């Protein structure tokens, strides 16, 4: 099963729709709660990054019998130094984002920790694509 969601740029009120919906879908098909939690957290952090850093984007979830693949893509500014961006605590988020509880530089490293396979592709001026694979076992 493949589902797709748009992430609105800058709209904090609508952020998290993709992860909330994917969580409900996975609950309905009986995926273990701890696995759903990893998927929901990884997707939510990815959505927040799209919204905060890239002016919006797209979340695709491919829900398969063995696992789920989440692809989060945007046509934002791209990430100049991926190694730096992957470090815990490194963030370019403005203060208003920190006041909302984000921008601590923990998102990308946590997405990697939650997933069984993590891939990030980014090109300055073109955008970013993050692919996370989650196995049910």
């Amino acid at each position, binding site marked *: 099963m493949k589902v797709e969601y748009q992430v609105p740029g800058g709209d*904090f*009120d609508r*952020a*998290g729709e993709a*992860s*909330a919906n994917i*969580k409900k879908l996975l609950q309905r098909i009986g995926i273990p*709660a*701890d*696995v759903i*939690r*990893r998927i*929901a*957290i990884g*997707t*939510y*952090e990815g959505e927040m990054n799209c919204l905060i850093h890239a002016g919006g984007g797209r979340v695709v979830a491919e829900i398969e019998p063995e696992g789920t693949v989440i692809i989060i893509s945007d046509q934002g500014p791209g990430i100049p130094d991926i190694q730096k961006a992957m470090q815990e605590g490194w963030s370019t988020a403005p203060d208003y984002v*920190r006041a*909302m*509880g*984000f*921008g*601590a*530089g*923990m*998102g990308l*490293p*946590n997405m*990697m*920790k*939650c*997933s*069984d396979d993590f891939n990030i592709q980014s090109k300055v001026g073109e955008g970013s694509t993050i692919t996370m694979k989650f196995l049910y076992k």
Partner: protein
Amino acid sequence: MVGLKTVQKALQAEVLAGAQYMDKEAEMACGADLMSDVLAFTKRKTLLLTGLANMQVVKTADVSDLSALVFVRGKEPTPEILAAAESKGLPVMMTKYTMFEACGRLYAIGLIGCPPKGAEERR
């Protein structure tokens, strides 16, 4: 593990949403205003104490499967926040105590903190 009603008593807290789910228990607790830290360091069924009253708190609690929310220092969440919590089956309490005082009171009745590394981490 501490029952939510015991938490409510220790904090002299008011239940603002999800009263019908107050029979649940909290396995551990976390005090934070940074939602990314909550997403990185909590486990399932964690009680979150926070001074941040916005929609992201409820969304973070939902994706993280937290057991309940406590707003400290009398921070009053908006009706929208409470409605969202209600629809997710998430109990919400409010206490007059500060973060420090509230955490101390819960620690004293046996609630433990989250380990520095998340539970379901793959690496």
